[in-house]
């Protein structure tokens, strides 16, 4: 294993240049294969029967009529797979199919495999389930206040405890109350972040194939084939060595496919019973029930600073509406507090974060897991503080910059940090100084910053093995094969390992073949989550490729009787550094090495530093080998008569360490900003109350009614890449896939304030919500353009609307 070679830009040939993706043309010609494109001989279609009640006991299930239907090959219920699963080993609380209780509308209770999909649907209708309805918890505050007089969503882990509490975390760093009391300015605010969901365009799909004598093969549109492999073996009581998981290309995920789901267990079990391959494809409606999206957050923030704009103390209370199951909730509860300690330095910080179960689809990790919601509140708080002390919000952020090579107040290790360059970049590109507080009423600009992890130092299940591995082999034709277990979900990780192989071994990109997505022949990579892949897989690929490169260099050096380090592998040739006229085609060099060392192959791996985290309970959560930094400026226009917010443009500056391929990095930045924009203005994963119809029913489980931005909605996006060259990242790279989502939402909120003087403290900034806030401000007489900051001093009685109540 190696750690981040510090090559300068001039040493790099391919890395850092715009390159095509290795599967790009397959995707644009329709050749790319996704799970639902696979048809196996004799394949049956499966369907899952789902609960119509948000909370109920299953009294009985009668599947006999379904079993009698011609063409139905297998029917299963919860009792057929009676083992709980869950992505976090300590909080496994889901059955593949409910055994005795359903916990949300959409919870699975039975599954069938039939000759075709229509017949499977018909069979579901013949299943009779008798339910005893239970009172449902639909509001997290009701969950919190529950006294056990009606059944909790889950049984309490301790007798007398509240079974509706998934997790509570209280952490305090520094003298929070003392420093708060000494602050010159204190700003308090309440915020609500509405839940949202991922909506990848590809619905979840899985195929199970049981070979009849002990081997199970499952194809799945998953982001985590390794964890799926483990859970399939454990839950179905199979030898993991006889379980194979294949991951075809994944049609988008964003965190929505980062844990096992009912359909994967069901296709496996149905295939075992039917002795035929079985496919289940979720309907779009089922994707909304599977969810695992952004938790709704109820937040209270109190933040203080000195009169010259230095943060003194931060105090946060967070209530997370988790839905029916734990999912990644334990981690979410920590991230909600832990990931807020940069890019600003704060001497004291306390957070109290509680996740509640409710009878709704389970929330989990969506792009920017855990920190997008609190970042929304935090960056508005920063904006309010800036205004109170009379500072431009850029200047306020600069004054509180945490710096590089430092520790946060909660002891996270920061290495490279390009946040100041991000700020400078968006400030200049957006012509901020001409616009801030200077545009006409109704138009405004806002800024926000953020940080995010490049993977987590600790894997989901405790072990000391590498987080990512790669195997490479060289063929006599000059071809390099890379065996990668990483999850290609559109972000480009398959291409990334190919770029590394081409860079290190001097072959053209077309000579690199990436063999992927199959636990039978690829080393373990833990999955596409927590923005870990480029950092970890990239380092693993460099490790493997450099071992091969050294063999090739040595063999050529012996042939030429020169020093091995003087042999360069570049542009399809091996050449002598001292006289580049002396060269041979790379294939000959590879053949020499194979003659000298035997068949050419190498493994490479990466593991995270385990000695850089806080020495307190939970101190390992949020610890990452490197952190990315982002700043956005959003420009908006607000119509105060209709409440319509138009986002004209978002400038996105992101410190990704090094852009291995700037085209793909920009794609991640733009896609992130777009997704944040959608959450800010349009998206709502909400459920009906009893007055609105059936309590707990998803309000709009379709891509028409759950509004995501179309091409006409999406603002202009401008990417500004910042490179801080991380000391441990592959060629200095850090993450780019999740960090750039965070600032979109608060930057838009701060721009709305600049436009019309109204603070928006709840998502989304949709016309009804905006109109209510505008009417409130109109009545209070605060619907006015805020004034230009007048320098570094406290402005008494600066105009604030909305929820602020200021102290000191």
């Amino acid at each position, binding site marked *: 294993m190696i750690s981040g070679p510090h090559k300068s830009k001039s040493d790099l040939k391919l890395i850092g240049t715009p390159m095509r993706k290795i599967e790009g043309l397959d995707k644009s*010609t329709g050749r790319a294969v996704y799970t639902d494109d696979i048809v196996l001989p004799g394949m049956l279609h499966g369907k899952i029967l789902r609960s119509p009640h948000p909370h109920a006991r299953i009294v009985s299930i009668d599947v006999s009529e379904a079993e009698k239907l*011609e063409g139905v090959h297998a029917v299963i219920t919860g009792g057929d797979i009676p083992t709980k699963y869950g992505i976090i080993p300590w909080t496994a609380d889901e059955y593949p199919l409910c055994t005795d209780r359903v916990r949300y509308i959409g919870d699975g209770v039975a599954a069938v495999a039939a000759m075709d999909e229509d017949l499977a649907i018909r069979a579901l*209708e013949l299943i009779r389930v008798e339910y005893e309805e239970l009172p449902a918890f639909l509001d997290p505050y009701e969950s919190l206040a529950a006294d056990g007089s009606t059944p909790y969503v889950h049984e309490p882990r301790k007798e007398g405890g509240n079974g509706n509490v998934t997790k509570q975390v209280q952490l305090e760093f520094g003298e929070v109350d003392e420093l708060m009391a000494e602050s010159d300015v204190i700003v308090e605010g309440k915020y609500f972040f509405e839940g949202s969901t991922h909506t990848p365009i590809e619905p979840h799909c899985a195929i199970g194939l049981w070979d009849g004598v002990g081997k199970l093969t499952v194809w799945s549109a998953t982001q985590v084939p390794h964890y799926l492999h483990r859970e399939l073996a454990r839950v179905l009581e199979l030898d993991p060595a006889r379980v194979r998981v294949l991951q075809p290309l994944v049609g988008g995920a964003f965190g929505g496919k980062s844990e096992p789901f009912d359909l994967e267990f069901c296709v496996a079990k149905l295939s075992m019973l039917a002795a035929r391959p079985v496919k289940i494809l979720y309907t779009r409606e089922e994707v909304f029930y599977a969810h695992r999206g952004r938790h709704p957050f109820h937040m209270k923030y109190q933040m203080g600073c000195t009169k010259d704009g230095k943060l003194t103390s931060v105090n946060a209370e967070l209530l997370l509406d988790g839905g029916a199951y734990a999912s990644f909730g334990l981690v979410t509860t920590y991230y909600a507090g832990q990931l807020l300690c940069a890019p600003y330095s704060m001497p004291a910080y306390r957070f109290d974060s509680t996740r509640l179960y409710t009878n709704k689809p389970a929330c989990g990790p969506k792009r920017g897991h855990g920190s997008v919601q609190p970042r929304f509140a935090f960056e508005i708080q920063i904006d309010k503080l800036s205004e109170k002390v009379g500072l431009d919000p850029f200047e306020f952020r600069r004054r509180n910059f945490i710096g590089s090579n430092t520790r946060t107040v909660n002891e996270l290790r920061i290495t490279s940090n390009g946040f100041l360059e991000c700020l400078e970049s968006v400030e200049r590109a957006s012509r901020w100084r001409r616009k801030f507080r200077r545009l006409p009423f109704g138009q405004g600009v806002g800024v926000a910053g953020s940080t995010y992890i490049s993977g987590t130092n600790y894997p989901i299940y405790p072990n000391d093995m590498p987080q990512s591995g790669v195997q490479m082999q060289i063929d006599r034709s000059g071809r390099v094969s890379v065996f990668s277990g990483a999850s290609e979900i559109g972000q480009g990780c398959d291409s990334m390992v190919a770029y590394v192989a081409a860079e290190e071994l001097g072959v053209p990109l077309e000579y690199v073949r990436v063999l992927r997505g199959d636990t039978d022949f690829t080393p373990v990579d833990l999955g596409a989550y927590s923005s870990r892949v480029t950092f970890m897989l990239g380092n693993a690929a460099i490790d493997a490729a450099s071992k091969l490169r050294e063999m090739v260099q040595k063999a050529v050096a012996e042939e030429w009787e020169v020093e091995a380090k003087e042999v360069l592998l570049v542009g399809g040739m091996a050449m002598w550094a001292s006289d580049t006229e002396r060269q041979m085609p790379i294939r000959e060099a590879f053949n020499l090495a194979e003659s000298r060392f035997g068949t050419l192959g190498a493994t490479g791996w990466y593991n995270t530093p385990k000695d850089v985290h806080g020495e307190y309970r939970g101190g390992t959560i949020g610890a990452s080998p490197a952190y990315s930094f982002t700043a956005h400026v959003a420009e908006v226009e607000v119509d105060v008569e209709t409440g319509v917010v138009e986002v004209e443009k978002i400038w996105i500056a992101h410190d990704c360490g090094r852009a291995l391929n700037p085209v793909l990095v920009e794609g991640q930045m733009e896609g992130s900003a777009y997704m944040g924009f959608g959450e800010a203005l349009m998206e709502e994963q909400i459920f009906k109350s009893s007055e609105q119809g059936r309590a707990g029913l998803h309000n709009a489980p*379709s891509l028409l009614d759950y509004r995501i931005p179309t091409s006409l909605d999406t603002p202009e996006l401008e990417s500004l890449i910042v490179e801080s060259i991380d000391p441990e990242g592959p060629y200095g790279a850090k993450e780019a896939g999740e960090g750039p989502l965070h600032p979109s939402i608060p930057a838009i909120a701060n721009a709305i304030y600049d436009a019309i003087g109204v603070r928006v403290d709840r998502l989304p900034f949709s016309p009804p919500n905006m109109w209510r806030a505008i009417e409130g401000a109109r009545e209070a007489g605060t619907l006015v353009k805020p004034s230009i900051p007048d320098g570094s001093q406290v402005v008494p009685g600066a105009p604030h609307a909305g929820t602020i109540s200021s102290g000191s």
Partner: protein
Amino acid sequence: MAPSGLSRAKLTYDGAWAPLVGFSSTVAAPRLAGHLFIMPAAIQIVRLNVNGDLREIGVPMHFTLLEALRYELGLTGSKQGCDKGDCGACTVILDGRPTLSCITPVCEAEGHSVITVEGLADVDGPHALQDAFDLHGAAQCGFCTPGILCSAAALLEQTTSPSRTEIKEALAGNLCRCTGYSKIYDAVMSAAQRLQVEAHLDGSRR
């Protein structure tokens, strides 16, 4: 199955097949035979012109064009994202017009020309749009890409030099969840320019 509301498949199944199923499930016959008993009554023969090939297929009456393409003709390039006309991943070109194949009954495509993503390339290689999508990183996960390419190709048949606004409008029925659309516009613009240059060169050669 959806706990709230009816799916299209359910409606068509109940409407067209329910009496047959009711009968077949009561007869004592081998499973396969029982199933086959249902099928013939529901099958229709459809003649399609897909990507220039004339094809005759037997499909259940309620099949959509998308189902016929994916399940009967093996043309899996066109994708199912929502199965109800919301997302645009199933878009194909029907007589030159971008059309949602997931809500087009297959019988309605009879007698018309259908072009799918697989039909955009020719013997000279990928369509300019396909190459540009690859070059500009316009396909991330790639699942919406076939539909977007069909919408864009239909646009370029209408206008050779579309503005960014015209591109946005042409793609408004195709949801992309990965890119934020920017790279897609870049790709369509650059493909349009390449096609213009090629048309110009072809013209001057003549």
